[in-house]
């Protein structure tokens, strides 16, 4: 039963990543693209943890924690660059 639920969740997040890619290519505004990139990061965190459950190892928490931190910093850096033309003033 857990395998079926895991497959369902994998499919959901994979489809979500495709939707985010569509929004990145089509997004009329810069804010749309940054938002889609941030959503991609969150979907990838969920996929990493699902992969950890699938293999029954606890190795992937550190990886997902790192992805979460780098994703937050990169989103803020994108927004700062668009807002002020510079990341660290």
């Amino acid at each position, binding site marked *: *039963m857990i395998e079926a639920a895991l497959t369902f969740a994998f499919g959901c997040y994979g489809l979500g990543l495709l939707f985010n890619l569509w929004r990145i290519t089509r997004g009329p505004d810069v804010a749309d693209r940054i938002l889609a990139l941030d959503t991609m990061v969150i979907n990838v965190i969920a996929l990493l943890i699902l992969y950890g459950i699938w293999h029954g190892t606890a190795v992937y928490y550190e990886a997902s924690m790192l992805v979460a931190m780098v994703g937050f910093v990169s989103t803020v850096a994108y927004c700062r660059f668009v807002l002020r033309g510079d990341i660290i003033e």
Partner: protein
Amino acid sequence: MDFLAELVIAFFLVVSGVFGFVGSFGLIKLRETMQRLHAPTKATTLGVGGVLIASMLYFLLIEGSLSFHELLITLFLFLTAPIVAHFIAKTFIQANIRPSDVPPTGGEHGWSMYNDPPSDRREE
């Protein structure tokens, strides 16, 4: 007991998958940028929360080891989601909304997007 544990874990996995799907689907379904800001920052964070609860339960009930790493990731995501949403909203406002479009603030200071920050009192 084993069946019950599997049932609860599968429930959390399905719920989180649905929430993650809805969050990404709202990103392409909603029309305006400010509406699109609503879908991912709420629903996807709930989806990741569901995955993390399922992971904690799986390693506690099936593998028999208690771990709190997931709570750290949940806490970090819940702390950073509003900051990210605020930054993206500021980016949108800066590019698309002119100072004549916004109402007066009603205070002695203007909008932070268009006016300089108030100077420090100690300099006066």
